[in-house]
Every structure is written in structure tokens, then in C-alpha cells.
């Protein structure tokens, strides 16, 4: 499904930062991959490179066989197939919940009104927020906003969902409602790449865990292996600090 080969990403902000150094990863269809690591380790950059919100400087990325970094690739088509959920929700504040979810279906997928309305309502129901459909995002709690953001991404019928620290900006009591939606999604067989600090989620839902540090993948394994018998010293140190 996702095939990342030797990608590099360097920022100049203004000093040189090597955000990704020779990263290679393969993610199969239906797989839930959780990426963990200390801040500044390149997790988010990796995720953002997948749909070219950031452009990798070197290497190859294939999503469903499409060369993401090729100049002739229509990136908008790729992005429509790759849903993304952000740490800060990024809902459109001037649109109601319903409009947030239906807008891209309308103008990107060009679905007829009846169809996109049905899809919107069923998704809002799925994330448990259909009673707030006429409300503006500012009137929702963080957890509700993030669930709308998930519905918005799902509305495009993506083949992959990318989650960039979806619970980091939430109040503690709202984390579970978002994680529940994500677990439900994983159960439905969605391919998911999740950057998170929620170790419980990683342990419970992930098929594989990727640990990154300083722009490189340090260790990859099943949650079982990862949390119980980590091999690298860096991984051990990280787990010791957070658990």
C-alpha cells in the first residue's frame, strides 16, 4: 500500500535540520502502524511527506503504486485518497459541521447532493456527532472537533488514513472518545499510520510499531516485541522515560 524508499528531508529554518535521514518503510493494506518517538524525531515530517504536505528531498514514495514525488503525478488525486487528521483539528471555522464534512465531497469528488448528504450524515453518525451537524466548530469541544475532522477525512473514502498526534491537543477526558473512533476504524480494516504518544493505543491497536529518533527509524516491531523486549538502547531509554 505505502512503499517508502530511502527518503531524506532537510529543512533550513534557517540552520540546517535533517528531519528525515534515509527512511525506508513498507505499510500493507489494512495495517495499523503506530509511529512513536521523542519530539523532533521526524515522525510528523514522515507523515507529512506521505501526502506531500512536505516534499521529501530524495528517495521514492509510492502510495497504491503511484509515485508521489514524480512531477507528473497529480498530487490532488493522491491526497484525496489519503485522509489526514491533524493535531490542531484544522476544521474550517466559517463552515458548519455538516459543511466541513461535505465540502470536499462536493468540490473534489464532485458527488451529487443527495449522495454527499447521505455520506455526511452516516459519517457524523459513525463518529457520534450527528446532533451537532448545524453547529460551527468553535461551539464544539476539542474531542468533538477532532471527531468531525476524522469524519471529514473519511468522507473522501480514503485508502489510507494518516493521524498526526490526533489526541495531543485534547483535554485528558476527551482523549478516549477520539481513540474509540480510531479503534473502530482499525477494526473496519482501514490502513492507518498514526503518530501518537498514546502508548495504550499503540499496544492495543497497532499491528506494528515504528520507533523513530533523530530522523531515522530505530526499531520496528509488533507491539508485543516493542514494549516487552526492545532491542536498541535508545528504544529502551525512551520507553523507560515514558512508561
Amino acid at each position, binding site marked *: 500500500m505505502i512503499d517508502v524508499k530511502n527518503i531524506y528531508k532537510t529543512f533550513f529554518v534557517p540552520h540546517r535540520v535533517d528531519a528525515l535521514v534515509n527512511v525506508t518503510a513498507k505499510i500493507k493494506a489494512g495495517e495499523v502502524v503506530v509511529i512513536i518517538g521523542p519530539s523532533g524525531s521526524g515522525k510528523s515530517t514522515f507523515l507529512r511527506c506521505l501526502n506531500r504536505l512536505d516534499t521529501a528531498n530524495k528517495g521514492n514514495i509510492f502510495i497504491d503504486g503511484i509515485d508521489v514525488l514524480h512531477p507528473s503525478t497529480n498530487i490532488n488525486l493522491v491526497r484525496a485518497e489519503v485522509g489526514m487528521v491533524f493535531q490542531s483539528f484544522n476544521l474550517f471555522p*466559517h463552515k458548519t459541521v455538516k459543511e466541513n464534512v461535505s465540502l470536499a465531497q462536493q468540490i473534489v469528488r464532485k458527488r451529487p447532493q443527495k449522495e454527499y448528504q447521505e455520506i455526511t450524515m452516516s459519517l457524523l453518525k459513525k463518529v457520534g456527532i450527528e446532533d451537532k451537524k448545524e453547529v460551527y466548530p468553535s461551539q464544539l469541544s476539542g474531542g468533538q472537533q477532532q471527531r468531525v475532522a476524522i469524519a471529514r477525512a473519511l468522507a473522501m473514502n480514503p485508502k489510507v488514513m494518516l493521524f498526526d498526534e490526533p489526541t495531543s491537543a485534547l483535554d485528558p477526558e476527551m482523549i478516549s472518545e477520539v481513540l474509540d473512533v480510531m479503534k473502530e476504524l482499525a477494526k473496519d480494516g482501514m490502513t492507518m499510520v498514526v503518530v501518537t504518544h498514546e502508548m495504550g493505543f499503540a499496544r492495543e491497536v497497532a499491528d506494528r510499531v515504528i520507533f523513530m529518533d533523530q530522523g531515522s527509524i530505530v526499531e520496528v516491531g509488533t507491539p508485543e516485541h516493542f514494549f516487552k523486549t526492545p532491542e536498541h538502547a535508545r528504544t529502551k531509554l525512551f520507553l523507560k522515560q515514558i512508561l
Partner: protein
Amino acid sequence: MSSSSLLKKKQNRSFVFWGIIFFIVISFCIGGLYYCTLKIDYTWRWYRVPQYFYYNSETKIESENTGIVDLINKKDTEIVITIIDDNGEVHQYSCLEKNVHIEIAKGDYVFKGDILLTYNKWKVGILLQGLWLTLKVSIIASLFGMVIGIFTGFARISSNPAFKWFAITYIEIIRGSPLLVQIFIWYFVLGTLINTLLTQYGLLLIPPLWFGIASLATFTGAYVAEIVRAGIQSINKGQTEASRSLGMTYVQSMTYIIFPQAFRRIIPPLAGQFISLVKDSSLLGIIAIRELTKATREVVTTSLQPFELWFVCAILYLVLTFTLSMLLQYLEKRMINS
């Protein structure tokens, strides 16, 4: 009495005190000004001002021939006078106005230049005409300025170097030179060029008014462009990322997500810009456009009442700008509520 109500009472007393101070100072200023004008023997004649807004003019219809009044025919709305001149030719004068006074009688011998009819009619005075022209110029220039500004604003943040450099060049030239000079360039340089070329091709000339409007529109456009650019850049980058990550194109993301949000933010600075435009239109008098300021100047030279008329002129501008600012405030409130 509780201390909180005592505090409240003290605050109220202080409010009243400073309110009174305000009105005293204002009255003192007005009174002082009036006193000074008395000292230089200026006679205030406010009653002379209204005639420059609206006046009753007497119109006379004169005979163009010499001859005998043959017939005065009064129909419901029309009066027809028939004069037969010395050569026996018949001339008719007709008038459709109301309240017409007939100055001659049937059988009178009239000479060329004699008055046949007089009537009174209310006419719009020069100040009101000037006000209307100011309003017209401001509205047209605002609309064009807005369109130019939005396009330039987008060009300014475009990644296309040609668009970007065109926008920067335009903005810097306009913002770096005085409006007065720009008006001169539009009128004396571009105006001469364009109209001379048009004459060569036998086309109609463009009246000076449109060069004046063009100068104001391009001037405002540059400032609106900067306001638009700032408004768009003030929208969180996450909004662009979210919309682009859904597969929207740059144009879709701008039209549906970024610009609608930016537009709400730019209404207050836009209001300021348009108010400036109304005031800057006073410079158009120098290229013979008789807007409010030019009209006032003309009236002052004939009436010799500069004090009243310049105050009236200022108040008329104030009425325009205040209405405009109220209108935009209403618009802003309505947009926030929706």
C-alpha cells in the same frame, strides 16, 4: 451603605465630572472661534448657504423674432405662443413648465429679446452637485480599487515570479509616490497620450473624470492589495494544509477556505481605506473635476463666505465617511453573526 455601592457612587460622580469637562472644553473652542471672527468683523451669513444646495431659479423665455403676438394658446400643460414677424413668417414658442407667467398679451408687438414667459423652478445647487460627484467618483473608484486590490493581493503571494514581481512593482510605485503626482501623471501624461491616440483613430475621447477615477482606483488598489495579502497570510497555515490534504486545488482552497475567512478580517482595514479614498477624492479638483472641494472653492470665490462654506464642506465629507463606516460596521457584524 455597603462599600461597593459607595465605590459605584464615586465612579458615577467621576464620570459626570469628566463628562462636564468635555462639554465645557468643546463649547469653549466653538465660542472662542466665534469670538475671534467677531474681532475681525466677519459677518456670519448662514442663510446664504442653502441656496448652494437647492435654489429657485427664474427662467425667462425670450423672443427671437420681431413681430406681432398672434395667438396665446393655453392647453392643460402646454402654452403655445405664435408670433408672426414682419415678413409674415410664423414662429411658435411652446413651454411645458408649471407656474408659468405670461409677460405679453395677444396683439402685442414684440422685439427680438423681449421676454415672453417666465417661470420658477427648483434647481440642484453646485454644492449638492459636487457632493454627488464626490460620491460617484468614490464608489466607482472603490469598486475598481477593490478588484485591482484582490487580484494584486493574490499575485503578491503567488509563487509565480512574474505575477509576484508585477505586484511588488505596482505596489511599491503607487505607495512610494504622492497621489497628487499620480493624478497629474494620469491626466497630463496618460490622458494626453490616450486621448491623442484616440483622436488619431477617430474615436471618442475619454473625459477627464475617468482619468481621475483611474488614478484613485489604482492608488487604492495598491493599498487594498497589501490589506488582502496581510489578511490571507493571517489565516492559520493549518487551514491550507487541511484543505489541500483533502485534495482541493490551490484555487479551491483559496476560494472556499482561505479567502472567506480572510475577508472577514480585512473588512475593518478596508473600511479605513475607502474612507481615505473619499477624502483623497478632494484632490481631483486640480484636474478640473468639480467634486465637493472644487465646488466649495468656486462657491467661496463668488459668495465671499469662506468660513461657513468650508465648515459645510467638512461636514459633508464627515457625513459621507461616517455613513460609510457605519455601513461597513454593520456588514462586519452581520458576517460575524452568520
